[in-house]
């Protein structure tokens, strides 16, 4: 049973560029959440997708956007990258109220 997968593993971008991160949920899960984890901190909730709609959003600017596809996979897009966007981006999938399962993350470095 494949768990949550994310791609790419690492990414280096320049300030002002745009980036797309991808996530495939655990088999049978229909909800995808995205989190940002800065160095030395706990993960911060960005947003959650269910039935291809953004259901809930954390305190992140509109530069952060997402999408969920009919197969439940998801993308996180970040526009106009800032140095402060450097972080580990974690995707988590879930089914109803059964706990969120995390992928290995994408390490984004903005230079």
């Amino acid at each position, binding site marked *: 049973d494949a768990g*949550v997968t*994310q791609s790419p593993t690492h990414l280096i971008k320049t300030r002002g560029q745009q980036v797309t991160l991808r996530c495939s949920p655990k088999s049978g899960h229909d909800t995808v*959440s995205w*989190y940002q984890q800065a160095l030395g*901190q*706990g*993960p*911060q*909730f960005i947003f*959650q997708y269910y039935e291809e709609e953004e*259901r*809930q959003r*954390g305190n992140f600017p509109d530069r952060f956007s997402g999408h969920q596809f009919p197969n439940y996979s998801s993308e996180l897009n970040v526009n106009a990258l800032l140095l402060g966007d450097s972080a580990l981006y*974690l995707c*988590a999938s*879930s089914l*109803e*109220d059964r*706990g*969120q*399962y*995390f*992928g*290995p*993350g994408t*390490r984004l470095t903005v230079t």
Partner: protein
Amino acid sequence: AQSVTQPDIHITVSEGASLELRCNYSYGATPYLFWYVQSPGQGLQLLLKYFSGDTLVQGIKGFEAEFKRSQSSFNLRKPSVHWSDAAEYFCAVGASMEYGNKLVFGAGTILRVKS
């Protein structure tokens, strides 16, 4: 609004000794509570979760946690620590699915195990 406090940034224990990691939460209703473990450069692995029922929850790798509503706590315990348990541990609180069930994490506790 939900919040989580993990009072200990670092904890060092000897291999074979018992472990307790503290977690206090703030939430207006019955919370969903979780403990996750993260090895350096890795994602988060779910150790255990509490939704309702028995307040003592068993998890993977020999961990357990006890929900104490009166103290707003959900402390993680292990009777005998192994060197492989060295990692960072995060406590998280979530709402029920009808409220979107986002997770709010504490700042984490780094566990060091000395031989």
